């Protein structure tokens, strides 16, 4: 009897974090859905180290197609704006489930961001292969109103915060709302894995091969023998580009970073290998070290 009580109490003690994990997961799923279903516009501040960029963000969904316009408001001469059609992220909820193996989720306080109430959710990495991620998710719509990536040394490497935002449900969603939930369009294909002479001997813990949109296939074909595959842990991703050295000039190893985004390029077996992703450099070095050439010697 005593033993049963003891076990029961231990389970009760653990129920808090477990419940937080489930609630956090639901909020992240809702957030991903909102990011791609909602019409929203506002001013977003993007902080990287000591640099601050202010951007105008307009996101609309028309006939199931997303349109996103992002313009930098920082310097008028250097402002950049882009309009692009984004692809569906219908697989995201699935990857969020798998990512709980490498992140612990905490649900925090309700805060005010951009004059709206939002719920803090923290995804804490269980190792040093990825950053801690902190979201404040709009209570009404699920849209992330602020987002931070924090290194294992407690330093915010990147931060996004809306200073003002207007959010609306798309018109077609309003009409369909009474009919129940509608799945977003599925445009992803199971590609993005090494198909050539290269293999990844060991995956970094928690990572798996991601998927690429169909629209990317033609881009790769234009890339003159450049192979591109993606690794993801459900929250962040790393692109690996491999091309024969003869098609590119640089011979030395280089690395750059911009906020949480790290880029590393080096050579192996007469190929140029470039990694781009929102992970610490050590993670990229690990991926690079585990890439092996299985083709004919060059």
């Amino acid at each position, binding site marked *: 009897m005593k033993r049963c009580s003891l076990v029961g109490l231990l389970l009760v003690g653990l129920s808090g974090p477990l419940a937080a994990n489930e609630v956090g997961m639901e909020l992240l799923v809702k957030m991903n859905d909102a990011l791609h279903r909602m019409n929203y516009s506002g001013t977003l501040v*993007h902080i990287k180290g000591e640099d601050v960029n202010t951007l105008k963000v307009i996101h609309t969904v028309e006939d199931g197609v997303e349109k996103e316009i992002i313009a930098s408001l920082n310097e008028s001469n250097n402002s950049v704006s*882009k309009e692009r059609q984004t692809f569906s992220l219908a697989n995201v909820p699935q990857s969020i489930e798998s990512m709980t193996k490498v992140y612990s989720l905490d649900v925090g306080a309700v805060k005010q961001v951009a004059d709206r109430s939002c719920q803090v959710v923290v995804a804490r990495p269980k190792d040093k292969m990825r950053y801690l991620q902190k979201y404040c998710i709009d209570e009404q719509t699920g849209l992330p109103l602020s987002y931070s990536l924090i290194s294992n040394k407690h330093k915010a490497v990147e931060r996004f915060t809306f200073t003002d935002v207007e959010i609306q449900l798309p018109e077609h969603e309003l009409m369909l709302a009474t009919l129940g939930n509608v799945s977003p369009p599925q445009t992803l294909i199971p590609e993005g894995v090494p198909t050539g002479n290269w293999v990844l001997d060991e995956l970094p813990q928690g990572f798996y091969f991601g998927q690429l949109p169909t629209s990317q296939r033609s881009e790769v074909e234009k890339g003159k023998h450049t192979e591109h595959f993606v690794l993801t842990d459900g929250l962040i991703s790393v692109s690996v580009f491999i091309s024969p050295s003869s098609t590119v000039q640089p011979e030395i*190893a280089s690395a750059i970073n911009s906020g949480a985004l790290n880029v590393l390029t080096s050579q192996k077996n007469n190929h140029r290998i470039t990694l781009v992703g929102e992970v610490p450099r050590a993670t990229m070095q690990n991926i690079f070290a585990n890439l092996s050439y299985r083709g004919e010697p060059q």
Partner: protein
Amino acid sequence: MSHITKEEYLSAFLDGEAGSFEQQRLCDQLESDDVMRNKLSSYALIGEVVRSQSQSETLLVGESFLAGIQDAIAEDEVLPEQPVAEEAAVVIPAKVSRPSLFPKQIVGYAVAASVAAIATMSLQNYFKHEASQPMQTAVMVPADSVPVSADASVVNAALGIQPVKPVMPQQRSVEPVVYSAPDAATRDMLNRYIEHHLQYASSSTLMPGVRAVSYSTDYASANNAALSGGGVRTVNFSTDF
């Protein structure tokens, strides 16, 4: 009458600084107070994370350990599942005898067992070489502790990929490499890859478009500075990781 808050008692309890009398009182509180139990779990988790994150810098817990926990709590403001009326300055109430669901000794043993389990996990983390093993947190449960390799293998099998045998990250040694700042040609190549990644591969990354535009703006600034003789701006493009 002291003005020590519940939170401070919990911290002291986890740090092994609470006396036996306070421990008994906390056990009584934990028996009936869901909020306290949640806080204990949260504090233990935060303490674990703080300890794990500080491993790379020191193997000894410094004097700021308790302050670090409190800072982390203040920053994340992990909420209890129910509102607390006497949150901030409430003193632990005097012991009130009431019918209890579980015998006090069992509650004490249960809490002690939880703390011991957490302490064991902490010690394991302590003596592991930095980054040679993944950090375990106090909230890990059997479902979460399933090796990630299992998940990866399932995904790979589903995708028809044969190779990969996921293992611990540092099992293959990463040779030290000196990375230089890229020259103009390399920079152009990298920019194409970055654009490609942000446009197509950041399927699981929040707001990749914002990063793309922000990066482009920085790049344009850097180029303009270089063209005007001002030198390339290094704030965002530094090679210092």
